[in-house]
């Protein structure tokens, strides 16, 4: 593959990849904690789980908001086609995200059992459904969706629910659950900590099975991605990094170096997203059955001038964002302790 000179459209392809990778690494763990939420049974354990993500979850969700905003600005045709084409899937994603967000805020505001149970279910289902739908959306743009000559989506809601996208949805859920479990282990202590530690291996096994099936399915049934891999054997090195990172997780966990396990999990995610991006480039949405209609960085982007302005904005804004995000995570480092400001 040839990136050519690193022009603005390619830069924005990478930047949007970075934003969504940031989203996966950060919101990934709080969606994962949400997916594991109902497995804990005691009220105090659930509160600790919630407060482990309490200070950071809505900052994490901003990565999605900014990612979508950047997609709108840099590749308006992709934003328009995907969002209108996947209409009902996105409405469901919104509903899931709404329930998740308000459940975190509302749950511990009242002592009644039914109240807390209701929001616990809302939080867990919202987290599961949003992880799943994000994976399904990724699966669809990789597998390819029917796109007509106007650049509009030509399928239905059911077109989105084909086996490969569903597989990617399940894989995403398992990935986030593993990531969330590691994060929760890092943030807890005592009995809950030991219980969570016991779950980690299960989540890793679950993820590895999903991952292996997805990889096989991609190589066998997604010819355009497999061809990219065959033509550029060096891409396998990223896959190797990915596998090493995943293999390193149980090792670090057994050595009780939870922080490093979390970093390994982040590296695995970055490698996965990197591989996904490199296999897709220069396409943003693959068109299936007619690849000629694919939306790519050339036919879907904004004007060079706007991309340049946006790059300036990103170069000013992103370093500041990273600086204070890191500081805030630093302030809230260490194990979660419940106090009267907690959820």
């Amino acid at each position: 593959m040839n990136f050519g000179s690193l022009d603005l459209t390619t830069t924005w392809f990478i930047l949007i990849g970075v934003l969504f990778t940031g989203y996966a690494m950060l919101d990934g763990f709080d969606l994962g904690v949400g997916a594991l939420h109902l497995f804990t049974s005691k009220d105090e354990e659930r509160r600790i789980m919630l407060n482990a993500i309490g200070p950071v979850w809505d900052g994490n969700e901003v990565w999605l908001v900014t990612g979508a905003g950047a997609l709108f600005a840099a590749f308006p045709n992709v934003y328009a086609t995907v969002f209108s084409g996947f209409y009902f899937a996105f409405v469901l994603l919104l509903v899931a995200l709404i329930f998740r967000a308000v459940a975190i805020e509302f749950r511990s505001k009242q002592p009644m059992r039914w109240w807390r149970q209701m929001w616990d279910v809302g939080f867990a289902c919202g987290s599961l459904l949003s992880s799943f739908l994000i994976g399904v959306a990724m699966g669809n743009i990789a597998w390819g969706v029917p796109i007509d000559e106007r650049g509009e989506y030509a399928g239905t809601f059911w077109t989105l629910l084909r086996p490969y996208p569903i597989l990617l949805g399940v894989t995403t859920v398992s990935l986030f659950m593993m990531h969330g479990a590691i994060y929760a282990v890092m943030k807890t202590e005592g009995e809950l900590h030991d219980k969570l530690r016991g779950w980690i291996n299960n989540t890793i096994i679950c993820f590895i099975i999903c991952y292996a099936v997805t990889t096989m399915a991609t190589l066998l049934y997604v010819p355009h991605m497999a061809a990219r891999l065959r033509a550029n054997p060096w891409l396998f090195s990223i896959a190797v990094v990915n596998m090493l990172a995943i293999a390193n997780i149980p090792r670090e966990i057994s050595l009780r170096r939870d922080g490093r396990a979390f970093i390994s999990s982040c590296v695995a995610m970055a490698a996965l997203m990197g591989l996904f991006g490199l296999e897709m480039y220069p396409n943003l949405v693959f068109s299936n059955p007619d690849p000629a209609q694919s939306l790519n960085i050339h036919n879907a982007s904004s004007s060079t001038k706007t991309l340049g302005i946006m790059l300036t904005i990103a170069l000013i804004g992103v370093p500041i964002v990273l600086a204070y995000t890191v500081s805030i995570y630093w302030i809230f480092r260490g194990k979660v302790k419940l106090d009267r400001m907690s959820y």
Partner: protein
Amino acid sequence: MPRPPSKRWAYPVIVIAGKVEPGQAEIVITMDVLTLSRLQFAATISFHYIYPPLSIGLGMMLVIMEALWLKTKNPLYHQMARFWTRVFALTFAIGVATGIVMEFEFGTNWASYSRYVGDVFGSALAAEGIFAFFLESGFLAVLLFGWDKVGRKMHFFSTCMVCLGAHFSAIWIVVANSWMQTPAGYHIVDTGKGPRAEITDFCAMVFNPSSMDRLFHTLCGAWQAGAFLVVSVSAWYLLKRKHEAFAKASMRVGLAVGLLASLLQLVSGHTSALGVAENQPVKLAAFEGLYHTTTNAPLTMFGWVNEKNEKVIGPAIPGMLSLLAHNDTAKPVTGLHEAAPDPKDRPPVNFTFQMFHLMVGIGFGMIAAATFGTFFCWRGLLFRKRWMLWLLVLSVLGPQIANQAGWFAAEVGRQPWIVQGLMRTSEGLSAVVKANTVLASLVLFTFIYLLLFAVFVYLLNDKIRHGPDDADLTPSGKLALPERRNS
């Protein structure tokens, strides 16, 4: 008057599927994709817009309260900041959750619009994410959960950053919306798959003719929303004789900000009107139901626009509209017939008129409430005047209703355009989305938002009943003063 045929329905008929024969009904409202998408956008934005003004306004109040605490070291201000932070957290969560819907809806329901304006409008949205949302939600963590983890100054800094982030988000979203009202700094380019707007001058786009007026107007409305929430809750405590020291201190801060914001809103309303008169004469004519260009144009106080015979019924001040729009009673104000000769280019006049007048009426009401409240407070009479306190309890609704009515007037007044003069609302729809799908999502959102609103009111009421925490009178952790820790 001839009797209508028996088959003819006198009431408006709403058609979701199928057809109504011509002449069968007086008013036929067809629930096509356009109507449904507009309804859905109106419903979701109206509900969302309850919360951001509270985040902006309460954010400002929190900054003031914490600043007072840092300066005076009076623990009462610490208690105030803690109590209002809890209310802030509640409004913020719903604001975030319902805000994502707005960002997605441009793509889901208005895909053709998104293709057309993505280059311009999208950049403002992305800038909002990078400059505003990260700042707001990042430092929110410290504001809500950092009380015992960071020192006073760091906490105050975080509160300022949350407030600043909320204001930044207002800047970018109002800039984006103002570009739809008065587009500037762009050119139209044919991309092969249809024309679209592209930026030629970023500064001209950001500082388009209406953006700064409308930003100031929006921010004043948000400050009012925050201030009058504080005033209202304080008045209620005073009526119930609960937490009186807390309520009196909160009331003073709330009234001061409320009065200042209400007076600034008057200035801002006037400059906005001058801008509308210059840039969007059709909208101004619709605001006042002015069909023909008139010198010495009258300002109707309140009334009803008869759209059929093009007359406005209601008391009016002669010459006042000319004065407000051009600073000169003798100057003509352009009427609808002259500004938009084709009736298809005009917004629904009576609706725009009513929304505009509702906003202005409440605006003056807020000035009166804040002025009397401040006057009585200054003379030391307020805390005994029960009727005035009851009025102040209700005052929380004023900015909320005016904010909603103002946006309706601004957005409906721009119709039939989605981008003034460039693209009609009907041209902005998603090409592939069907009416039934939008109907389903509309029903779903309505149901969820009603549920959320009920829970929000329930929890807010619960927090207000619970009141400020007396434990907050003695700051703990890193916030505690060293001398306090020793004593």
